[in-house]
């Protein structure tokens, strides 16, 4: 991690050089403009599309599916992961199923979801939930299993009930793993949302980008890609922010309680 506030000058220069070259070559050659419209034109497109046309709607549609799918997956998978990590019996019954489904690339579930749920929002949310659940589930199971048994026994000798043990030992102990899973799933969620939007069409940034490509509105296409990258970047920053808060809060809480 670089110290905050320090500007990466060589990086900035390279970035500007690339953008300037792009702009220059594009303006210089008409045949190139179809593939690489000038950066300035992309930004203008972005502005116009955002404020005067339908792009904001697409962004909101994608954002909604993304948030719903991701959060639902997180809750479900953490819950399931704790159960499966905690109970050997439950795990042993589901292991074969997990090992069978896991290697299948998650996007292959899209046709099934279309079959069951049609092309509505519910379908896109469902595939997102399915795909995002895996990393969280596997990591949570791992995390719960890796908790030191003596820690649990210690808790037991101090008269901790099941619920308390879960809250004070299992969840904090497994949280580094859970966080890892949640971080992986963040990228996966966006992959699934955009893919399903491209496959079924209608609305969302994935659909928008593909549609603009098909009608050869390439500066609009790049504007859409810029926006979706921004969404991914923003989601990541938000994740880091929330993670920091939660960890700080958690540290304070456990510190207060153990004293």
């Amino acid at each position, binding site marked *: 991690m670089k110290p905050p506030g320090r500007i990466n000058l060589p990086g900035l220069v390279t970035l500007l050089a690339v953008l300037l070259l792009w702009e220059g070559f594009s303006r210089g050659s008409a045949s190139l403009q179809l593939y690489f419209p000038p950066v300035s034109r992309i930004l203008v497109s972005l502005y116009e599309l955002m404020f005067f046309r339908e792009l904001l709607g697409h962004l909101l549609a994608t954002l909604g599916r993304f948030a719903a799918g991701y959060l639902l997956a997180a809750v479900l998978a953490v819950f399931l992961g704790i159960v499966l990590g905690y109970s050997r019996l439950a795990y042993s019954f589901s292991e074969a199923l997990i090992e069978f489904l896991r290697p299948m690339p998650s996007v292959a579930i899209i046709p099934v979801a279309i079959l069951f749920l049609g092309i509505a929002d519910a379908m896109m949310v469902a595939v997102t939930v399915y795909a995002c659940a895996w990393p969280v589930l596997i990591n949570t199971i791992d995390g719960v299993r890796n908790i030191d048994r003596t820690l649990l026994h210690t808790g037991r000798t101090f008269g901790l009930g099941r619920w308390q043990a879960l809250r004070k030992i299992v969840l904090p102990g497994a949280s580094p793993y859970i966080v890892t899973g949640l971080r992986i799933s963040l990228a996966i969620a966006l992959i699934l949302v955009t893919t399903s939007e491209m496959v079924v069409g209608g609305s969302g940034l994935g659909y928008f980008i*593909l549609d603009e490509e098909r009608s050869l509105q390439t500066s609009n296409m790049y504007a859409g890609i810029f926006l979706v990258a921004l969404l991914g970047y923003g989601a990541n920053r938000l994740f880091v922010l929330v993670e920091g808060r939660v960890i700080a809060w958690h540290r304070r809480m456990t510190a207060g309680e153990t004293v």
Partner: protein
Amino acid sequence: MKWNSESKLNGLALLVALLPVWEGLSRTELVNPLFFPPMTRILRSFFLLTISGDLPYQILVSLQRALAGYLLAALVCIPLGIVMGLWNQVYRMLELLIEMARPIPPPVIVPVAMLFFGLGDEMKIFVIAFSCAWPVLLNTYDGVRSVDRVLMHTGRTFGLSRGMAITKIVFPAALPQIMTGLRVSLGIMLILVVISEMVGSSDGIGYFVLDSQRRFKVDQMYAGMLSLALTGYALNQLFLLLYNSILAWHKGLTRAS
């Protein structure tokens, strides 16, 4: 991972027990057989499609594209990652570009690739290479950065030149982490080949599965998914085999410490 093998029997037993239930529910139309065709029909479809060569063909087509993109990513990103790890200036120069490009969800690269390459193999190879690039690049960079200084000093005290240090020390020492990146990318590779075939293709397993659904050949669709799961599993096992033969020393090392 250290799952117990004895417990696997339970799960298998449950799966086997569920099959006749599924079969019965579907045959008696208690669940819609359009959505849940009887298991035997799916397996029969899988069997027939395999015999006829349809499924193997589609898988093969997809695998060719997938591996081409994957290898392209590895060939570009491993050297680049090593250069970035050894020369911090290069890393600093590329850092912002990488940070800008990395959050782009790989599926939206499909339209860009279609613009440049049309609907052919090049389009898919490009998309796969783009998506597989990040884990390989960043893991290689990390691996090279964390090569022990003492190890580098050891090389130099034996008169190792800078170039030779890369092949004799940096690369082998970073190899475990490079392999980690390659492993992550292997999963991504399979996802992206399916995506690119769903969005813009007329063959390949991704196209096959989606097309089967669109034509309501549901047993075919499930058969296609089954073959994908098997392919994914086989690729993973193959990779593990490779990993264990190349990095036997690392496995022992981590177990020893």
